[in-house]
């Protein structure tokens, strides 16, 4: 029979089988084309990137994406080839030459990939349009959609070249497989994989210990200054930890798990049950023949989880920190009272609400002669150690009165902080901390303040992270009683006058902020809460979009490989399940066995990914992020959200896999 007609006939007869292959290749091409179009979309890139950062990221991601495409396509190619070896073997038995069979395979592959290419380009065009639409909506961009072509010819070219290259590589690898496999193995390929399995204690133990040591090292960062991360150095310890966890994971999966399950078989009471006696050996066998896939999946899912958790954290943390960086809706320094009138005018122009409060705080700087002073006393006096690096400050405590503090907190709507306040006596003060520091608590310390010619000692009754004024305008803030403050005002001139403006009606008003900024000719003392949030969003959104894209890709890759792998393993052993049914296993019991076997393969990558993600997030959070927020579990909500999301996605894939497997196995 002619090759092409035979290939066509094959395609027609095994339509549902090829549909799956077609679908997965289509999917890959869709993603690839959409991304390529996006990275070649000059109109969009100009809008969201101002310093070439997005372009660089696009390039990095496209490398990942290409690797993903190659990997995914070769995986599905292998998967489908494997399921057809028997058929190919029969051709060979009938007298077809291997070269004939190969050209049959290549013809089929070409047909499928061309179909997938057309579908992929179409879908990818839509997908790309969707992304552009989403981004413009999200970031409020003005984009002329008609300027963006549906099919960017360059992107089509690039996709076509790349996919053809992959198809050629696949054809080469298929021919290698075909010519290397003997006729005997082709015919009984599905049964040939079994070899006597060997179990070695040494690599298992090493793997187990390596993983545990790696995690302990990661935990060590919690010891703070004494930890190895700081005493030896972040970089070497980081390298060591990742190397340990990586090699440990590999050995753990390849050696320890089968070893442990094999050892577990000795426990007869546990092992001799109707499901365990089937699932445990099945698990050992599958892990032996699939350890490479499983290891790769585990690493992939660890990477996915870690990246999404770190990403969520690094978006969430600065936003959570805005309440400290810019506690008031708008805050600035004023030189004279007349400026206030001007401000009111501008605000009225942009947002004529009557709930706006204007609060002026005069800050007095006081020095102290105490031997041991808190870090805040001298922070920012040299370059590189504070938030507002443009201006250096003089060392000293910056005093504000207690009554102003409470009023400011109230205006900023921080009722919780207000509730915990107790009034101050004249010899008492509250110290505003820059960073939480559990190692040295200043509570109870006495600082003699130099006021005029007198030294007045004050005791710190509390330290707090609830700063009423941004760090751009005041560091080392000390809240003193109104009487003591009054004494100060008589002795000195204020170091700065800070105006805090609050009110619901001026929130989220970027135009107002820009107008004020213009009026103050870009003063670094101008701070705004909503403005800061807005800034964080627009600076990081493109990064997050791209990383988010990558994460979604990883998820899909992991999920679909798990799906294919499990479905093929279980449908391959359909005859085994038939035997079990004849022996008297009920369909429910068989379903339970399938569930257990599938679950093991989902749980291993998930749990490892989870552990890796938790420890990596911990290290990242403790070592690499500036720490100005109180350490609380709330900070880990984004991580938990990422984990939950991953869990749900895994669960959905798991359900789908079990459903397909049961359908395949339990039909009469």
């Amino acid at each position, binding site marked *: 029979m002619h090759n092409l007609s035979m290939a066509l006939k094959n395609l027609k007869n095994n339509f549902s089988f090829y549909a799956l292959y077609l679908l997965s290749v289509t999917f890959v091409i869709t993603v690839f084309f959409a991304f390529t179009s996006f990275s070649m979309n000059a109109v969009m890139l100009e809008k969201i990137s101002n310093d070439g950062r997005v372009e660089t990221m696009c390039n990095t991601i496209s490398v990942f994406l290409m690797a993903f495409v190659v990997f995914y396509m070769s995986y599905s190619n292998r998967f489908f080839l494997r399921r057809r070896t028997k058929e190919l073997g029969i051709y060979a038995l009938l007298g077809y030459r291997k070269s004939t069979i190969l050209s049959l395979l290549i013809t089929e592959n070409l047909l499928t990939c061309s179909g997938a290419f057309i579908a992929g380009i179409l879908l990818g065009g839509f997908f790309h349009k969707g992304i552009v639409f989403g981004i413009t909506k999200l970031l409020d961009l003005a984009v002329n959609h008609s300027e963006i072509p549906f099919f960017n010819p360059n992107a089509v070219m690039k996709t076509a070249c790349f996919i053809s290259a992959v198809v050629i590589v696949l054809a080469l690898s298929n021919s290698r497989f075909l010519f290397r496999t003997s006729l005997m193995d082709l015919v009984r390929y599905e*049964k040939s994989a*079994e070899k*006597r399995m060997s179990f070695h204690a040494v690599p298992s133990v090493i793997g187990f210990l390596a993983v545990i040591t790696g995690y302990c090292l990661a935990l060590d960062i919690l010891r703070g200054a004494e930890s190895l991360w700081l005493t030896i150095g972040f970089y070497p310890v980081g390298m060591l930890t990742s190397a340990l966890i990586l090699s440990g994971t590999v050995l753990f999966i390849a050696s320890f798990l089968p070893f442990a399950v094999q050892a577990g078989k000795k426990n*007869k*009471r546990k*092992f*001799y*049950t*109707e499901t*365990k*006696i*089937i699932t445990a*050996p*099945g698990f*050992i*066998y*599958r892990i032996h023949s699939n350890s490479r896939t499983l290891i790769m999946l585990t690493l992939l899912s660890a990477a996915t989880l870690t990246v999404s958790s770190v990403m969520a954290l690094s978006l969430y943390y600065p936003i959570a920190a805005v309440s400290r960086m810019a506690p008031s809706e708008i805050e600035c320094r004023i030189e004279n009272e007349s400026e206030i009138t001007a401000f009111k005018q501008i605000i009225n122009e942009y947002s004529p609400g009557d709930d706006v409060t204007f609060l002026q705080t005069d800050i007095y700087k006081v020095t102290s002669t105490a031997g041991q002073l808190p870090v805040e006393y001298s922070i920012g006096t040299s370059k590189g150690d504070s938030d507002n690096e443009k201006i250096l400050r003089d060392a000293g405590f910056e005093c504000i009165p207690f009554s102003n503090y409470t009023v400011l907190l109230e205006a900023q709507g921080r009722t919780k902080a207000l509730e915990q306040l107790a009034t101050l006596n004249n010899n008492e003060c509250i110290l505003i901390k820059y960073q939480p520091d559990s190692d040295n608590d200043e509570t109870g310390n006495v600082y003699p303040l130099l006021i005029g010619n007198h030294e007045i000692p004050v005791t710190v009754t509390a330290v707090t992270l609830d700063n009423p004024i941004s760090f751009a305008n005041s560091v080392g803030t000390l809240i003193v009683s109104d009487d003591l403050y009054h004494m100060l005002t008589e002795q000195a001139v204020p170091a700065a006058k800070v105006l805090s403006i609050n009110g619901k009606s001026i929130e989220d008003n970027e135009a107002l902020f820009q107008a004020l900024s213009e009026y103050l000719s870009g003063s670094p003392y101008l701070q705004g809460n909503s403005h800061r949030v807005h800034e964080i969003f627009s600076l990081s959104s493109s990064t997050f979009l791209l990383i988010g894209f990558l994460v979604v890709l990883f998820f899909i890759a992991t999920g679909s490989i798990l799906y294919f792998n499990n479905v093929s393993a279980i449908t391959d*052993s359909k*005859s*085994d399940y*038939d*035997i*079990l*049914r*004849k*022996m*008297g*296993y*009920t*369909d*429910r*019991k068989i379903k339970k066995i399938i569930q257990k076997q599938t679950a093991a393969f989902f749980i291993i990558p998930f749990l490892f990914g989870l552990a890796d993600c938790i420890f990596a997030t911990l290290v990242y959070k403790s070592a690499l992020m500036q720490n100005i927020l109180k350490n609380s579990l709330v900070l880990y909500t984004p991580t938990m959200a990422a984990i939950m999301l991953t869990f749900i996605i895994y669960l959905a894939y798991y359900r789908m896999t079990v459903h397909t497997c049961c359908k395949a196995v339990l039909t009469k």
Partner: protein
Amino acid sequence: MSALLEATEVTKIYARAQHPSLNKVSFSVAKSEFIAIMGASGSGKTTLLNVLSTIDTPTSGSITIDGVNIKNLSDSGAADFRRDKLGFIFQEYLLLDSLTIFENIAVPLTLQKLPPKKIENMVRSLAEAFGIDPQLNKYPNELSGGQRQRASALRAIVKRPSILFADEPTGALDSSSATDLLNTLKESNESLNTTILMVTHDAYAASFADRILIFKDGCIIRELFRQNDDRRTFYESIAREVAKLDTER
């Protein structure tokens, strides 16, 4: 003699088939009988076995095994029935490849939720009695075809089923392995009183049985009894009968 299995007017017509594969088949099997079913290819032997063993359902007619009318069994009821009462041997030995021989034989016992100690003892003593204990810790693909088939016979026998169904168990074996397996069946029939229903094409295999049902076009057309013949004589009379059938065609 009390009947262990009673089939009355069992008919099976497959969907879209013109002729019934089983046409009003009636017969009964006594406890600890060894029955061979013979007949040309396509005469309905496998169909009969499937219907009797609850794997398939008859179109009409009734089947009682050990006092249970299997028509009234639900899906899971049928599964439990197979678990407790029936054993199977197939032409392809159909052992589970990822389990050792020991584990393969133990599966039916775990399904009956027997205590581990007992499972271990039962498997080991049976393996000793039938001489496959050296192979217990091997995997199926490390055994010869004959050894595998004997292991799958032991897997069927180990739980002491009321009836053992065997569909051409010697079909894939050479003559000496076949003899081994048939001796195994005969021995379990004699010493453990296992009731056996075996489909075979082979007069030699059939000569191990006590009674032979010969099928044609979905009906039993002849019945042969061993009576007091020795195996050789019985074999010759079966061979004659089969030759006669061939000339009738």
